[in-house]
């Protein structure tokens, strides 16, 4: 009987997590379909292009970045793979893009999971974006410095 109680505790705790995630998932995935249908992703990429240069990323990184940041690279792998294969990327640019996206992606979904636990949204975004931008800028300086010395 004790084991049944314990299993029930585990099941209920799991179910509670699933339900709090459901509250976020429905609006998110509906918004995503709308964004794809009405071309909002491309429009957002135009805005993103401005931030690429200061980060040492090529402007062709704008679309993969927007797709990865908003949707995550599991759902948007198609969009990202296409722009990586079609574009003319240097090895360094590709590495920087993937370090960025590896650390920070699926900002809406991933943040929402932990916001559902009552953690502050802005802080959750900051602890991801700040370390990511620091390491991207740091690596970029290192790369420029090494190229200058050659």
């Amino acid at each position: 009987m004790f084991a049944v109680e314990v299993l029930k505790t585990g099941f209920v705790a799991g179910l509670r997590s699933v339900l709090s995630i459901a509250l976020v998932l429905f609006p998110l995935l509906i918004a995503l379909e709308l964004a794809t249908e009405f071309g909002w992703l491309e429009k957002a990429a135009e805005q993103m292009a401005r931030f690429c240069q200061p980060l040492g990323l090529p402007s062709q990184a704008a679309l993969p970045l927007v797709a990865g940041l908003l949707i995550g690279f599991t759902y948007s792998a198609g969009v990202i793979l296409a722009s990586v294969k079609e574009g003319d990327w240097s090895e360094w640019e590709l590495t920087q893009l993937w370090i960025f996206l590896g650390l920070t992606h699926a900002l809406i979904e991933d943040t929402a999971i932990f916001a559902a636990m009552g953690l502050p949204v802005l802080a959750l975004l900051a602890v991801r974006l700040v370390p990511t931008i620091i390491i991207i800028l740091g690596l970029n300086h290192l790369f420029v410095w090494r190229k200058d010395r050659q």
Partner: protein
Amino acid sequence: MPTNRLLPAMTRGVQNAVKVLWMLTKIIIPTTIIVTLMDLFGILDHLALFFSPFMSWFALPGEAAVPLVAGNISGLYAGVGAMALLPLARKQKFILATMLLLSHSLPQEGAIVAQAEGKAVTVTIIRLAMAAITGLLLNLIL
């Protein structure tokens, strides 16, 4: 926004959400049950004891190694499932969330990186390192 495109798009969104939610249910509920069983058989205590010297760097109890390992190997949702049972203070929850956000689903996401000609090993090492450094710094700051 024409309605004839609005409704089908919204329907697809709902269908996707149902699909993803079912996938998550299949991950989260078994994970929480496994962790409950680990707790019942005292495995959690052993793991906790073993990991507590390392986890204390991040102000976390030894048991928190379970969601970290689950999250990194399996996925963010498995991490959340394992986290659901641990009695954590707000600061601890935040640090664990941060570390999981920066580094999770390493095999699956590494495979996608490699497929797109990225350096999966480099990306993985940087993710683990940044998760550890950020966790350590948050422990000192908060």
